[in-house]
């Protein structure tokens, strides 16, 4: 089982999770909700990052849970429940982004950038500059094609291992590394080396 990260309320142990999954596979909806709840906050944060729109993320999160429930009987446990659930989430987010790209009035992601708080650890005189840079970063991430955005969100934002992220996306680790690199190159180009290096100094 993947160790719990940000805001994740993991079941007490892998055995507990396995037991809940087994009960869910047998049709116990309470067990499904319990095991899925452990990953819900983190999964929702991923959807927010991928979609950049809260109401759309809420809608997709409900869809993810419904699809997971509908498919739980076919889950054989060859990967972790977490990986399996995230794969559904990434698929559903990609589907939503695809739909959105066909809409003429696609949602602007700038609002998310504007909502980001300044890092309280920054010195006051750098906060405005850093906030601007963070906004530019979020905007650059939002402008990435979905597969690239997904790679950065899973690996760099969520901190998943290359192996986990590659498994969720459904490609080899080598292909994932290459995709991640291409994604970072695009963001780097959008922000500019000078701004990045100054911020990192």
């Amino acid at each position, binding site marked *: 089982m993947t160790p719990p990260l*940000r805001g994740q309320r993991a079941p007490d142990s892998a055995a507990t999770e396995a037991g809940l999954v087994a009960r869910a596979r047998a049709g116990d909806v309470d067990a499904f909700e319990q095991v899925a709840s452990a990953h819900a906050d983190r999964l929702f944060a991923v959807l927010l990052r991928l979609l950049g729109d809260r109401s759309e993320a809420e809608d997709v999160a*409900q869809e993810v849970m419904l699809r997971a429930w509908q498919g739980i009987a076919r889950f054989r446990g060859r990967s972790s429940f977490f990986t399996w659930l995230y794969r559904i989430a990434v698929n559903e987010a990609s589907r939503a982004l695809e739909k959105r790209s066909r809409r003429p009035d696609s949602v602007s992601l700038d609002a998310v950038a504007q909502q980001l708080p300044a*890092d309280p650890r920054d010195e006051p005189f750098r906060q405005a500059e850093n906030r601007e840079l963070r906004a530019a*970063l979020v905007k650059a991430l939002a402008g990435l094609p979905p597969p690239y955005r997904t790679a950065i969100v899973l690996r760099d*934002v969520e901190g998943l291992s290359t192996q986990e992220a590659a498994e969720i996306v459904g490609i080899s680790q080598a292909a994932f590394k290459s995709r991640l690199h291409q994604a970072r190159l695009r*963001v780097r180009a959008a922000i500019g080396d000078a701004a990045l290096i100054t911020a990192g100094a």
Partner: protein
Amino acid sequence: MSHFGRADDHQWSQQHLSHYIEGDLGRRARRRLGRHARDCADCGRGILAMRALVHMIQGLDGLEGVRAPAGIFDRIRAGGAGGERGGAPSAPPKNA
């Protein structure tokens, strides 16, 4: 670019900056890129920029403590829980 390295060092290095900053290269490959970057301003800057970028992305903290919506399981309940299992037109991965 290095005058002493292999002709394709620059292109190869540019393609492996992410691998380099993550410590994801073998010893020889790491030495190859490091040696090239010492002489190549472009690749040297690339390493610094990539490190700063990843650090900044990792520091995106706007969603810390975000909570999943309360109604995240509503559709399951609305569908009668057990009634619709296993038959989704676009089903989740069979096994993962």
